[in-house]
């Protein structure tokens, strides 16, 4: 797929991957074998009819192709850009056994983009059902649950704490990887399905889950509040200025548009030498954002080796092309500051890899006496997030797991309370867009079953 030139793109926030031309899409679609028993679909957490949409594309019927996609996936333009297809649908594609799998993600993106450009048709509205569902959080989990429930005819209201819906898609993943206009248009589609999205509503503060159920008349609640609590390492100097959590760094940039300062009023400061701690997607996004904000040097500091880096392969490659440095088997142990309390350096330690730990990855072991100093003036800590505690803390009777996550059945999203369902990062811990969407989808199904049962009981009186 064509991409923006690396030297040019590291100075702008425009999308890196440019997408297929119609000719490329046609050629790629033609490779699909339209398998009778398509393995690719089994690798898709929301069960998109992959051969179906590719066949329609092959025949040049893009309208139908988009419709097939959207039957299962409310956010195809998002998924076509950020899903780890290489480890899901594409990993199972029959063509991948001997050669290259069909580039399903890129085709998905192509079709979704075509539809947006040509004006998506107004979705059909089903016969309304006399039941109300509240969805908390408007990330991929919440949006998917809301969209599916609306398609079934329920009256759905989404409550979002921030001033813009979308969750991580809006505040976390950078513009150059997922243009916000794309997210906005997919959210508009969810609205057109009849979903009412109310922003600036912090559940647990503005009202509690129980108030929604008891006072506001909702019949069921879906919680999709994500994993928004940033982890820190708790090492000396970590509260110096110039040390950001990845969430702060990315939120200032993406949601608040700090890269357009002072046209937009939210500031961000990036020094000459930036160190990003961690090597997941979040870390790659932060390291690449730092370059775009003017850093001369941006380094990934990671305590394991290249093999264990959790980020998507494509993102690591893109980061390398743009000049991000990788310091592997290294981790900070302390930061030092100047007289203004601003970070100016960090002490790092080198690691070697020992036996595999419970995560199945080889355990990093610090090498005694390997400490060294690094001059640095900005740090972004991207070592993961844990579930946001606001809702768990304020909802009685919800069983909470060890890591602060809501305990919910993986298949149904059912929690310890019959009318409350949950899914996405708040249940699993930080994971992926498509897994969150899968959870939202399954929860919508079981909320429907729950409400039908409730309706039957009411009819019986």
């Amino acid at each position, binding site marked *: 797929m064509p991409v923006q030139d690396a030297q040019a793109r590291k100075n702008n926030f425009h999308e890196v991957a440019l997408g297929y031309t119609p000719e490329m899409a046609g050629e790629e679609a033609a490779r699909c074998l339209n398998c009778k028993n398509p393995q690719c679909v089994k690798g898709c957490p929301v069960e998109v009819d992959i051969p179906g949409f590719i066949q329609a594309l092959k025949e040049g019927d893009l309208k139908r192709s988009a419709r097939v996609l959207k039957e299962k996936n409310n956010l195809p333009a998002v998924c076509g850009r950020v899903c780890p297809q290489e480890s899901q649908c594409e990993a199972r594609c029959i063509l991948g056994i001997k050669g290259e799998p069909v580039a399903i993600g890129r085709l998905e993106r192509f079709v979704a983009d075509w539809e947006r450009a040509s004006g998506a048709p107004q979705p059909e509205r089903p016969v309304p059902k006399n039941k109300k569902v509240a969805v908390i959080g408007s990330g991929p989990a919440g949006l998917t649950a809301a969209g599916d429930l609306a398609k079934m005819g329920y009256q759905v209201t989404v409550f979002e*704490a921030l*001033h813009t819906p979308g969750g991580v898609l809006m*505040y976390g993943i950078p513009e150059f990887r997922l243009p916000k206009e794309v997210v906005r248009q997919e959210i508009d589609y969810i609205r057109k399905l009849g979903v009412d999205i109310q922003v600036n509503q912090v559940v647990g503060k503005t009202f509690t889950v129980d108030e929604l159920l008891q006072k506001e008349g909702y019949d069921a609640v879906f919680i999709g509040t994500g994993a*928004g609590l*940033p982890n820190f390492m708790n090492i000396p100097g970590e*509260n110096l200025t110039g040390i950001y959590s990845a969430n702060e760094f990315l939120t200032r940039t993406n949601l608040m548009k700090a890269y357009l300062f002072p046209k937009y*009023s939210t*500031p961000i400061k990036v020094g000459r030498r930036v160190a990003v701690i961690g090597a997941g997607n979040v870390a790659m996004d932060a390291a690449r954002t730092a370059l775009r904000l003017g850093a001369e040097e941006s380094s990934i500091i990671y305590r394991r080796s290249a093999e264990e880096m959790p980020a998507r392969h494509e993102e690591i490659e893109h980061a390398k092309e743009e000049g991000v440095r990788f310091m592997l088997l290294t981790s900070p142990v302390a930061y030092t500051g100047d007289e203004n309390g601003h970070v100016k350096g960090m002490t790092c330690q080198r690691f070697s890899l020992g036996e595999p730990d419970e995560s199945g990855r080889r355990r990093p072991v610090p090498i005694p006496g390997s400490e060294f100093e690094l001059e640095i003036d900005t740090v972004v800590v991207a070592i993961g997030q844990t579930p946001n505690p*606001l809702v768990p803390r304020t909802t009685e009777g919800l069983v909470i797991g060890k890591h602060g996550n809501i305990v919910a059945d993986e298949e149904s999203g059912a929690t310890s309370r019959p009318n409350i369902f949950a899914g996405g990062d708040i249940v699993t811990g930080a994971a992926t867009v498509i897994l969150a969407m899968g959870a939202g989808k399954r929860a919508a199904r079981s909320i429907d079953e729950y409400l039908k049962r409730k309706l039957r009981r009411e009819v019986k009186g």
Partner: protein
Amino acid sequence: MYKILHKESLGTNLHLLEVEAPRIARKAESGQFIILRLKEEAERIPLTIADYSREKGTLTIIFQEVGFSTRELAGCQAGDTILDLVGPLGVPSEIENYGTVVCVGGGVGIAPVYPITRDLKKAGNRVFSIIGARNSGLLFWREKMAEVSDQLFITTDDGSEGRKGFVSDVLKEILDKEKVQRVWAIGPMIMMKVVADTTRPYGVPTIVSLNPIMVDGTGMCGACRVAVGKETKFACVDGPEFDAHLVDFDLAMKRAAFFKDKEQQALAMCKCGGERR
């Protein structure tokens, strides 16, 4: 959209806004705050809830013009709307009948200290209040504070009103004479630090309300982190009130100053009305 019903000037660069926000007013408690965003390009500004009316569904906020965003907010008039308003955020103050309490408000800190003082009085405490500012033009709500206090003291740095000196001078005198169970102090960081140092030798539990730089206000970004005792806390969800004797004020002051130069840059672009050139 949240409608501004009333605007008032309270002194030099000090403004009061009464805003329609029924959902937030229904839940607001003393000690909590809101975050507002004036328009699409604006910053998210945290401001304490200085008063609220559950019946009218309104909130009162009071703010000082310190930089671009607050200046822009000062450009608003009654009838205008605020794009986003979210809250009530933060943990409410722990109001109990402690016995004798002292409430200290410095400058714009008088606004957040007012509802706390009122609630402490309602809860049956004997309340001494001290309000202070650099000069008389920066003082406000004298009557409202007097109404909810057993005794009100006023100080100004330059002696233009009340006693010449600092709020901490009066506080020390009270501590010498009375058995005080608790002190609340809200105002500039340096004032809160001085109050903490004043009450420390007396061993009186002291609460301050911190106002670090924030972004989301829901515990998501970590911008608002403060060192309290040996722990790092997020002021937006763990606070904004903390035990004054455990707060690392020096660090907090440095963190608050982080974007100063950037703010100068924004300010340079703005005409006095808060509009951009």
